[in-house]
């Protein structure tokens, strides 16, 4: 067993490495993905990989891209471990010869950025939301709005509601800290005060102490600068502590909704606009396909990585049209900036900005009757 594995290890490594350098058109387009496939946050890995799988299968069913099939190679960073990310990236590079990698989580993405630069690998991030990720690599692009931008938008809406005293519960990680820093000047400039800022370690379920301090600060709005599944827990606990104030955040996944249950009613959040209705046929098609395939509600993160694969497919078409060796970060980056507009599963088109972040429409949603009801578009200033 062990010997066979070892043989496979080396044989596969050398053979494929050699093959990857042959012609401009590969036999198959390999798309690597480094996700949280195990560990504490493996829910993210599950939904992201499901989105990728759905997109790859849909595209291949229609004959692939440029007549060439896509192949997704899912790797694991064990829920945000930088070192695991580097190992995974090395595997993708050496064994699979992948030149396109979908990435997630800040630490592993930061850690693989130098390797992406050295090897001209296109990185597409649909999960990590830290400011730091912008420009981490020459070839990194982001297809979700930055946490700080969403936070500012949420704060602006809170102001328009007349709120003055904001209490904050935030993830003690880069994404949470980024929003805290971004919102503070916006909020205070408009005359508001921030009455409490309480940190919650990612993956902690017991947040009663933080909730008690938020309650004692007597805010007129509570902001949740955090992500699944803590959003659901926080909403639930805030309500159970008898707090009636509006709660606003930057995300509300199906997982969160399940945890909060009926206590989630009235929760407000600002996020990339998504509505699976007839008005947005691709959104609807994705949502129906996802539900049929996985027997679960479509998740925001699944949509992002689903979309990511389609962006890659489109880029491959455009880059190929440029001629020459095109399956690499440099050529694909050039093709992307030649025309930064792409169809979005969120409806309409998104446009990549010079900093590599796709500009998407941001909407305000409210939880009503266990549905995320779209309220209005919000301009992120």
């Amino acid at each position: 067993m062990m010997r066979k594995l070892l043989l496979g290890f080396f044989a596969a490594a050398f053979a494929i490495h050699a093959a990857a350098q042959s012609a401009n058109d590969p036999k198959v387009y390999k798309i690597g993905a480094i996700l949280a496939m195990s560990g504490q946050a493996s829910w993210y890995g599950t939904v992201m990989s499901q989105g990728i799988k759905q997109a790859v299968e849909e595209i291949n069913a229609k004959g692939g891209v440029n007549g060439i099939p896509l192949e997704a190679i899912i790797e694991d960073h064990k829920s945000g471990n930088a070192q695991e990310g580097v190992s995974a990236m090395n595997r993708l590079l050496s064994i699979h010869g992948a030149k396109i990698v979908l990435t997630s989580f800040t630490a592993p993405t930061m850690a693989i950025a130098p390797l992406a630069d050295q090897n001209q690998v296109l990185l597409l991030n649909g999960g990590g939301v830290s400011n730091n990720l912008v420009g981490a690599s020459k070839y990194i692009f982001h297809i979700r709005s930055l946490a700080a931008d969403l936070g500012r938008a949420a704060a602006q809406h809170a102001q328009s509601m007349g709120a003055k005293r904001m209490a904050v519960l935030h993830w003690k990680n880069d994404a949470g800290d980024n929003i805290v820093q971004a919102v503070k000047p916006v909020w205070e400039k408009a005359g508001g005060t921030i009455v409490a800022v309480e940190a919650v370690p990612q993956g902690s379920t017991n947040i009663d102490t933080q909730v008690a301090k938020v309650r004692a600060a007597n805010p007129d709005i509570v902001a949740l600068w955090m992500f699944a599944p803590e959003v659901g827990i926080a909403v639930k606990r805030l309500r159970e502590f008898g707090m009636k104030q509006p709660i606003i955040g930057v995300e509300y996944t199906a997982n969160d909704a399940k945890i909060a249950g009926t206590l989630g009613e009235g929760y407000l959040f600002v996020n990339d606009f998504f509505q699976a209705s007839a008005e947005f046929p691709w959104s609807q098609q994705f949502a129906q396909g996802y539900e049929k395939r996985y027997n679960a509600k479509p998740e925001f993160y699944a949509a992002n990585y689903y979309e990511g694969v389609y962006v890659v497919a489109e880029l491959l078409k455009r880059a190929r049209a440029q001629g020459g060796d095109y399956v690499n970060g440099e050529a694909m980056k050039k093709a992307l900036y030649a025309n930064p507009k792409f169809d979005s599963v969120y409806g309409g088109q998104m446009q990549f900005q010079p900093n590599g972040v796709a500009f998407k429409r941001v909407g305000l949603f409210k939880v009503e009757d266990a549905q995320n009801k779209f309220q209005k578009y919000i301009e992120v200033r």
Partner: protein
Amino acid sequence: MDLVLQLLVNGLVNGSHYALLGLSFGLIFGTTRITHFAYGPLYALSAYACWWASAKLGLPLAAAAAFGIGAGAVAGVLCYVLLYRPFERAGSPPLVILIASLGLLILLENAIGIVFGTDTKVVAAPPAGIFVLGPAVFTSVQLAQVGALAAIALALWLFLSRTRFGRAVLAQTDNPEMATIVGIDTQRMSLLVFALGSAIAAVPACLVLVKDGATAHMGFVAVFMGFVAVVVGGIGSLRGAVAGGYALGLVESLGLWKIPSEWQSTIAFVVLFLVLLFRPQGLFSGRQ
């Protein structure tokens, strides 16, 4: 001042939770001296069993919890019989058993993720009742956490002090060598404490399922806190484990009164550090 009262209530509630963890982990660890890391996934498994009985079998919550407790006890016994006993028979040093336990932790955590999926599991329960006590608020689930500790601690105390087997367990936790000399059947006793300890551990697990939902990795924090409670209280003392749990809960909660919450875990551990510096044998152990 209102905040202090609320933090005190929270501290007592969380303290009860930690005390249950300390009690169950301490029962196993104190008696067998097995560093039972796999306590973590067994704890999660109990919560998942409760969820499964409630969501898939449609049992009422109390029955589902009983199912979870039973499943926990069975899993605990299997764990001892299939994993630890063979190691003990081979005369493995405690550290080797510790790493084997860690292997089981990795195995089970991932198995739970595969079998049940990675999303958070919640049970359909009526919304928790909310009680207001002056400026402090608590829910019926939190009340249940405190009540569970009281009931279990009392029942355990009766069992340990009134039955022959219970007294044997106490003798063993107090002095493992002594029990062997006196001729107590240590294997039967190990079976018993694994069943009992795992069943007790299932109670806080089910309560957390109702309170916050269950995830495959929920057990890591649980075994960690249980272990810490046992050591703070003094190894070999179940009373100490309960006291250690409360100390932990109260420090974690009240400590945040004036200190920013990003230091929460740090406060608890700085206190621990100081306690052990001045009372190396643990807070409540009489032994030097």
